[in-house]
């Protein structure tokens, strides 16, 4: 598993906090592993919660008709890159 960048650490903390993943440590999230299904085993309810948290924290509104949507939630790394490229706060 690759190392998390500083910003990935921040987003990992947001994931753990917003989804109440008490049994996952933020630093244990593999930045390149899928967030949904396999990997952390998150589902569509989690996707909504995570989208809300990302919107509140960074002002990035996630849309499913975004062509990149699958890619955005593909991994911690992809999500962090999307936020950094689009953040307004």
């Amino acid at each position, binding site marked *: 598993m690759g190392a998390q960048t500083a910003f990935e650490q921040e987003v990992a903390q947001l994931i753990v906090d917003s989804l*109440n*993943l*008490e*049994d996952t440590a933020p630093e244990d999230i593999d930045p390149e592993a899928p967030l949904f299904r396999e990997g952390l*085993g998150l*589902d*569509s*309810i989690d*996707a*909504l*919660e995570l*989208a*809300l948290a990302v*919107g*509140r924290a960074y002002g990035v*509104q*996630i*849309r*499913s*008709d975004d062509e990149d949507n699958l890619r955005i939630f593909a991994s911690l790394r992809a999500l962090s890159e999307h936020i950094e490229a689009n953040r307004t706060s």
Partner: protein
Amino acid sequence: MSEPATPAHPLYATHDTPLARINGRPVSRAAWLADVHELAARLPEGRAALNLCEDRYRFSVAFAAILLRGQMNLLPPARGRTVLAEIARGYSDPIAVVDSREGDFPLPTIAVTARGEAAVAAGDTPPPEIPLEQTAILGFSSGSTGTPTAHPRRWGDLVAATGQALQRLEMDRAPGHSLVATVPPQHMYGLESTVLLALLGPNTLIAERPFYPADVHAALAREPRPVLISTPFHLGTCLRCGQPAPASPARVLSATAPLEASTARELERHFDAPVTEIYGCTEAGAIATRRTVAEHHRTPYPGVQVNADDGTSGLALVQGPQHAEPVPLPDCIEVHPDGAFHMTGRLADMLNIAGKRASLVELNRHLQTIPGVEDGVFIPPAAGSDAAGIERLAALVVAPELDEATIQGRLAGRLDPAFLPRPLVRVEALPRSATGKLPRQALLDLLARHGECA
């Protein structure tokens, strides 16, 4: 027509309004019918077909093609392989109609590819007629016995119930409304409030299913005269996203779980539109509404009666023209002298997570029948889910040979994701009492000892 007259009703109401809109492109009722005929010709002989299309336009095409062939739409509540296989087994090898064959289906599939682009001559060919007595759909609910219970509804039942809804919701007049929905069409509420309101009224279904709050808001801004059809959970995310609604729908419909009056007030402010709760269940379909900010009680649809329990089952019964016989309602209900009613609670065994219902008995059966699981139990959250967020189930499992991921994987094939436990904790034994019961406090203590409980 010279055949002996079987009582029938047209497949759709003839209106100039589009039947559907796909990415903003209107599809006329004639173009839709061409797609229906094309698919109907490809369906094999049979009694029934699973309609698994996620795109609402393709679902509607499949729904109608299956009806035209005299078959039943099987509408599974979840898409796990085990659930689909269990349902398919009962209906002599049905096929599944799907949007795309890319997927993991335990039965043969036929894909709907049509997008309402067939060239059709403008004409006034009357819509095909479907016999009122034909079983149109089988919905499935979680029974306390464990296996999903099938609930047949005839075409005539759907026609009657949809007529009541069109009238009550004032959606029966041209030019109609755009039906923007976050609920899947396989769900009884999703079917009744989108596909049927478009087929049998002047309304237009929107093929896409908005998911994130930003999608919902964008659809409301894009579609003419929208009605938003959603759930307390999904509507709550629109409130919590912190963004104002860019356009007002004509109305907002909510169902699948009770809406708090305070949430309804916030929603009416957020959307600047009336919020109407629809009450119904898989067994009976939608039967009543209330404007949550103004009414405590729910008013049955015109022609529908709710009666207090008959003294034997303890359940209230509903009867309308769409019910062959009185249908017991899966909630604790108090009926007022004027025919309105209010809910006093859920039946003890029924859970509602993110608007999805399941029987605790059935969830436990699924868990306990996984090979390698010796014992196991789901623990419901203390408070019901509401707009502030989702409470998850927890589970304690005795399975010395399996790890958590394996058990979760097996459950994922059988259950809707909303019911997957978090956390799932492996223990050496469950704290069963002498009578085999599992006191809730003992379960919570055991969960807490494993340090997994918030």
